[in-house]
């Protein structure tokens, strides 16, 4: 692992839904301008971990974090942290493309507008830049006023990426962003992720092991809430230290 100052530091982190503990003493450092993949069988807690990074789990009643997650040295669960601010810094793309039933333009502008930006020229500039950033501009530039639901699934997901990019986050969380897409759209999203890591810290949850191997720099393997192994992707996939990791990536279970 390269010795950069980590962007995100997770330390002895536990997470509970009511009485059941879904994350157990997770500790890992996430590097800036890196793609970090979280893999593991269904129900292992990988989406929960991802959603802890922008506190999306706050929405779930009776859920409770314990331990520390720091972004740039700041404890994100501290009472002084404004969760709205946090989510501006930590963008998220969901598993199923979820464009709002508004025009393509308004979708990308949404985050800007709710954050109080009123200057229309600035909004236009940012919308264009974000759509270019998510490689959707060429397809969308002549139909910005069209309803986003008319886009194909892959285009919708790139629109959601653009929407997240528009508010200029530092970290981008992606929860199985390609699982609802066909192979061609998936390839486009993967290219996009590799392109985006130049500027952003990316954490991606994926079910698809080849995908993790193709696009990530580091991989974390989670199993029933435990972080079994975490390291450079090339190491994890070629010489895993744990037997369980090896069995999972070779498809013996999961």
């Amino acid at each position: 692992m390269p010795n950069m100052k980590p962007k995100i530091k997770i330390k002895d982190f536990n997470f509970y839904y009511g009485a059941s503990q879904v994350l157990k003493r997770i500790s890992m450092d996430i590097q800036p301008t890196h793609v970090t993949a979280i893999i593991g069988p269904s129900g292992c807690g990988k989406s929960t971990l991802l959603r802890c990074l922008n506190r999306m789990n706050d929405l779930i009643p009776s859920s409770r974090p314990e331990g520390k997650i720091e972004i740039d040295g700041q404890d994100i669960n501290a009472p002084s942290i404004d969760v709205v601010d946090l989510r501006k810094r930590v963008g998220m793309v969901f598993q199923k493309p979820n464009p709002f039933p508004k025009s393509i333009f308004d979708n990308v502008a949404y985050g800007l507008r709710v954050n109080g930006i009123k200057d229309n020229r600035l909004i236009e500039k940012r919308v264009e830049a974000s759509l270019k950033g998510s490689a959707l501009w060429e397809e969308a530039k002549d139909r910005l006023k069209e309803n986003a639901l008319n886009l194909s699934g892959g285009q919708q997901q790139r629109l959601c990426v653009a929407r997240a990019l528009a508010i200029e986050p530092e970290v981008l969380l992606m929860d199985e962003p390609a699982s609802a897409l066909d192979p061609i759209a998936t390839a486009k999203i993967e290219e996009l992720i590799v392109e985006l890591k130049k500027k952003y810290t990316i954490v991606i949850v994926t079910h698809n092991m080849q995908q993790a191997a193709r696009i990530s720099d580091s991989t974390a393997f989670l199993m029933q809430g435990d972080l079994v192994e975490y390291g450079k992707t090339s190491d994890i996939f070629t010489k895993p230290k744990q037997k369980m990791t090896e069995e999972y990536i070779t498809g013996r279970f999961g």
Partner: protein
Amino acid sequence: MNEKSIKQVLGFWVLRLCMGFVALILVVVFYDIITKGAPAVTWTFLTQSPREGMTEGGIFPAIVGTFLVTMITAILAVPLGMGSAIYLNEYAPDNFMTRFIRMSIRNLSGVPSIVYGLFGVALFVEMCHFGTSIISAGCTLGLMTLPLTITASEEALKAVPRSYREGALALGATKWQSIRTNVLPYAIPGMLTGAILGLSRAAGETAPILFTGAAFFLPDLPNSLLSQFMALPYHLYIMSTQHHNITLVRPIAYGTALVLLMLIFLVNISAIILRYRLRQMKKE
């Protein structure tokens, strides 16, 4: 034919008969009211007051009364109902208290309307000193309609996908911003439809206005919200049971029924059109 397909054919026919029976009742009711009511409904009937001991003239004061009372009902029930529904569905924690409140609301919609009438007398007529008036009757009907508007609004809110809320929050929207810009616009058509259907039911009610403000006969239109009023359903009730010559005024009763029916029909159709319009706007 084997046994399975005979059962299937039989099943279909039973269901078809049920449907046919319901449709038949509807047709008979409509036929009866329209054939007997239509001759009475003339321009004079719609625009004049009753005359000659309510054996002649029209039902204009009753139309105005029903309209005014329904307005008061709307002013009370629609904003309150929508507001409570938004709170219940979006903000209230899911605990014993909210479940209890929700259950009580459901139960309230089953309370007989005459009970609301009595309650209206106690609260609005007596305690608030509104007297028997448009405002007392409107508020009573408003209370009666509230459970319906709350329930319908909550259903409309539930129909908005979670991903709209999460998507907005993930972009740094506050909870209120996500509700206002990304939930309400998609729930409003359903909320309004529910509200209008509730109002059309309120407009046709007799029991709640019976003691709270409806009058047997008034020669003049109400001149303030504290006046008594005539209302279509109550007029119909009087014309069919309380009048000194029921057989003579039967056509007027049927005419009133037809007008009331048409008004409610109109309101319901406007609800459908409104919902359709709003959906179209959203699709652009």
